[in-house]
């Protein structure tokens, strides 16, 4: 049986070698009335060179373009491959339609949740091989639309393949876990940058574990929290989409016990986040900053010879809206804080700081007392706690 369909399909494929978007099957990915426009390539020229061959439009330089040679027969093979992929996608879209109709008639919430999970998977499967989606994901970051399940899947895979591993390595090796919280099951990607910086080495996203000078962290950071799981889809009434962000320094010297205490440096709560609106940036702080902040930002300003200190940023998912009036900064117990407010840690980030020449000026700006100075040789006095 399959042979019949295969031969029929191959005949059609031969007739449509160079012309695309003509046959019925190809409509799956060229039809844009029910699909988001972010699933197709925006630049018409690049789209044409992808489907009809010729010199690549992504090479702008005219000489390099002329000197470029595509692999032999790639266009013809691509057309046949596209037919094959579109056919598979067509089956998946049929499944999507079926699941959607089932969803509208279903009333049981549990079955509905299962159906939604299936629907999401079908939507991913229907687009995951779309060459236009792959192109946009690789080369056109503007078109990555996190409201589409397929882009979320691609983003998640990319995160897991590198950034997540780097983060977990740094969290463990720098003992952020278990010094602040026991452990972390990462569910969201947390990216941090300090956008007030005008030096290129400090203005981009921070790699976990980097040592930063005080002037580079003197104003509140932009925090990007990318949500991957489908349950976190937000609408305003749904309280599970509210997040709490806490920045702590577990290395604040405590001379009375000859040990360390944890200090709270920044606290945000009730921050609504969704797949598309996922940044806590200056714009948001400018308009709603007062509402979110329960503990305003004070940079970590290590004292001379107090060694390197860790800035641990934790992102929690809230189970209900919180009313945190204010919080004691000194001797902050983050475990207790999470337990009291019923918070689930979903993401974390860490950078490090040490004393540098910009510390004193920033202390003055923030009206903080001058920092203590410690002897540079470590003594053998025992622990007093």
């Amino acid at each position, binding site marked *: 049986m*399959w042979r019949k369909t295969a031969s029929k399909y191959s005949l059609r494929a031969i007739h449509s070698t160079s012309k695309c978007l003509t046959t019925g099957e190809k409509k799956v990915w060229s039809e844009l009335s029910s699909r988001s426009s972010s699933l197709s390539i925006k630049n018409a020229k*690049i789209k044409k*060179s*992808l489907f009809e061959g010729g010199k*690549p*439009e*992504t*090479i702008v330089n005219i000489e390099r373009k002329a000197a*470029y040679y*595509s*692999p032999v027969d*790639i*266009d013809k*093979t*691509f057309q*046949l*491959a*596209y037919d*094959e*992929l579109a056919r*598979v996608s067509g089956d998946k879209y049929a499944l999507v339609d079926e699941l959607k109709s089932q969803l509208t008639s279903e009333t049981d919430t549990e079955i509905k949740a299962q159906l939604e999970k299936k629907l999401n998977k079908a939507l991913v499967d229907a687009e995951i*091989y779309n*060459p236009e989606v*792959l*192109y946009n994901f*690789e*080369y056109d970051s503007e078109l990555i639309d996190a409201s589409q399940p397929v882009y979320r899947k691609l983003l998640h895979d990319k995160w897991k393949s590198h950034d997540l591993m780097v983060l977990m390595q740094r969290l463990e090796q720098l003992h952020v876990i278990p010094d602040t919280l026991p452990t972390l099951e990462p569910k969201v990607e947390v990216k941090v940058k300090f956008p007030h910086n005008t030096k290129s080495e400090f203005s981009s996203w921070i790699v976990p574990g980097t040592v930063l000078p005080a002037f580079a962290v003197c104003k509140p950071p932009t925090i990007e929290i990318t949500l991957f799981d489908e349950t976190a889809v937000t609408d305003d009434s749904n309280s599970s989409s509210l997040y709490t962000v806490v920045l702590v320094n577990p290395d604040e010297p405590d001379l009375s016990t000859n040990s360390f205490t944890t200090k709270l440096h920044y606290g945000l709560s009730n921050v609504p986040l969704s797949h598309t609106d996922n940044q806590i940036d200056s714009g948001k702080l400018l308009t709603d900053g007062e509402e979110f902040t329960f503990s305003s930002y004070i940079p970590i300003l290590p004292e001379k010879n107090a060694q390197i200190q860790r800035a641990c940023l934790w992102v929690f998912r809230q189970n209900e809206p919180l009313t945190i009036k204010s919080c004691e900064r000194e001797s902050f117990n983050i475990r207790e804080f999470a337990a009291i407010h019923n918070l689930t840690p979903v993401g974390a980030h860490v950078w490090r700081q040490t004393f540098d020449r910009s510390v004193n000026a920033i202390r003055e700006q923030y009206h903080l007392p001058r920092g203590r100075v410690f002897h540079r040789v470590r003594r053998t006095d025992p622990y007093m706690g």
Partner: protein
Amino acid sequence: MLSSSIKSAVLPVLRTFVRFKSKADVSPSTQRVIGQMSALSASKKQPKVIRLSNEDLIKHKSIVNAWNLYRRRKVSRQRDQLNKQYQSIVDAMEDLKQSEPELYVWANTKQTNKKFPLQLRVPTDYPPSQPWVYNVKK
């Protein structure tokens, strides 16, 4: 032995024929070893690395994706058919066991002196000059 046609092909070449002296000051045996080694080594013989443009990378990825899907579909179809065939053997034997125990015993007896036929051939890309053997000697 050179055929006459080859000789005719060689003749125009002979006019440019020059016998060279050995270029290097090495013995012929050493030269031969050098030739053999260099034929095996990669130096200067490697092609340029293929650097694909963005479009071509996506095209290549899509081709590979499509191929993997295609193969997966084909293999799973074959596996399904084999499963069905096995199931129908089981069904037939179960039925035989119930209705015709005697035939079941015969059908289940191992054929010990049976040999795989040498005449069964692996398919080739092009057929032999006589595709089928008609005269059977018993």
